[in-house]
């Protein structure tokens, strides 16, 4: 009896490993089909514009508000620490580097997963459960091209832009707190920042990070919606999975990318 239960556990482990591999394979095929499949739709540009509006423009408020507040908090905390060493001018450099290298891409990725990713999953899952996807197939329209591809591209395009906007408003919020409220000299605030921030190393690496996060988050969101069980419970589970997987993927990839970009190996 005991022996079979051990064997049974090993079998279950193998089964779950195979399931993970299968899901990975399916999602990769799904992505390749959606992005590079041959049959395109004629009004693809308008579909993309609609999705850019839903995914990008409607995410702007939360990105801008969180960006400003995170920049302000960074400046406040940084000032409190640096003023002990009499080098409060370095607060600009600290705020800018923190936002550009880390918080801009990462927090945008997390917010994007919560705001846009969950919406994408729920929308596609809902289409699936009301059989809109199969109806499209019935009339000869590829749902991967008509529904999925514009959403994927919209995510890829809008998240890097959102991350850049996040960094800029964050730096602006930091400048407001440090220069206007705490009285750091404006000239040294900006010149310290410009001396330490490198365009290729800091700004572009941040943008590269956000491109990678955009790719992963959108992919997870769209695939979870497309792959979910077509019931209300299945949709809610898929939405939860999107936020959890996407957030974990952003944080894990962030460590790897940081090690590759800024580590010495």
């Amino acid at each position, binding site marked *: 009896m005991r022996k079979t239960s051990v064997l049974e556990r090993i079998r279950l482990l193998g089964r779950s490993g195979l399931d993970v591999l299968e899901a990975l394979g399916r999602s990769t095929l799904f992505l390749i089909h959606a992005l590079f499949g041959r049959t395109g739709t004629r009004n693809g540009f*308008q579909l993309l*514009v*609609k999705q*850019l*509006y839903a995914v*990008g*423009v409607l995410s*702007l408020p939360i990105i801008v508000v969180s960006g400003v507040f995170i920049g302000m908090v960074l400046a406040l905390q940084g000032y409190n620490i640096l003023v002990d*060493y*009499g*080098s409060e001018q*370095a607060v600009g450099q600290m705020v*800018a580097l923190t936002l*550009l290298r880390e918080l801009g891409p990462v927090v945008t990725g997390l917010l994007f997963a919560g705001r846009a990713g969950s919406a994408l999953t729920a929308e596609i899952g809902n289409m699936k459960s009301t059989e809109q996807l199969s109806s499209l197939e019935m009339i000869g329209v590829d749902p991967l091209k008509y529904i999925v591809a514009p959403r994927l591209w919209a995510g890829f395009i*809008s998240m*890097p*832009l*959102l991350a*850049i*906007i996040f*960094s*800029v408003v964050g*730096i602006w919020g930091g400048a407001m707190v440090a220069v206007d409220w705490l009285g750091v000299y404006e000239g040294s605030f*900006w*010149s310290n*920042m*410009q*001396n*330490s*921030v*490198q*365009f290729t190393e*800091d*700004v572009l690496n941040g*943008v590269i990070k956000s491109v990678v996060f955009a790719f992963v988050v959108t992919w997870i969101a769209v695939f979870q919606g497309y792959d979910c069980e077509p019931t209300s419970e299945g949709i809610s589970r898929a939405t939860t999975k999107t936020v959890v997987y996407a957030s974990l993927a952003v944080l894990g990839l962030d460590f790897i990318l940081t090690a590759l970009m800024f580590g010495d190996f």
Partner: protein
Amino acid sequence: MQIRTLEIGVGLFLLAGLLALLLLALRVSGLSYGANGDSYKLYAHFDNIAGLTVRAKVTMAGVTIGKVTAIDLDRDSYTGRVTMEVEQRVDNLPTDSTASILTAGLLGEKYIGISVGGDEELLKDGGTIRDTQSALVLEDLIGKFLLNTVNKESK
């Protein structure tokens, strides 16, 4: 919603993103003198670079004229070799100029200060500054001071 309104919204969003990137490039990272073309390389050997880092600034009379681009150990002379990119507009440095490692601010940020010599020959691209002054290492100074006091007391 009308497709026209959507398109205007998306257009504004894309514009805002590009504008933000431009702001980051010009206002935050201060893209000014490029690394290539309008600058030239100089080398200097120091006995001890003590905390000088890549990207540290190179100054002359307090004005920034370039930056440190690489630091490595010279195998033959056992000295630290510092590679500097100096702006092309400062192309009239005499060969006997002095490079010293100086300290700025309370946090001890190191930079290179160049003082002009009097030679008529000028440093060219890839030239080496012979006359250098290493960084002040506090441990050395304290060690010497302590040794001095001990010696005095023993006499």
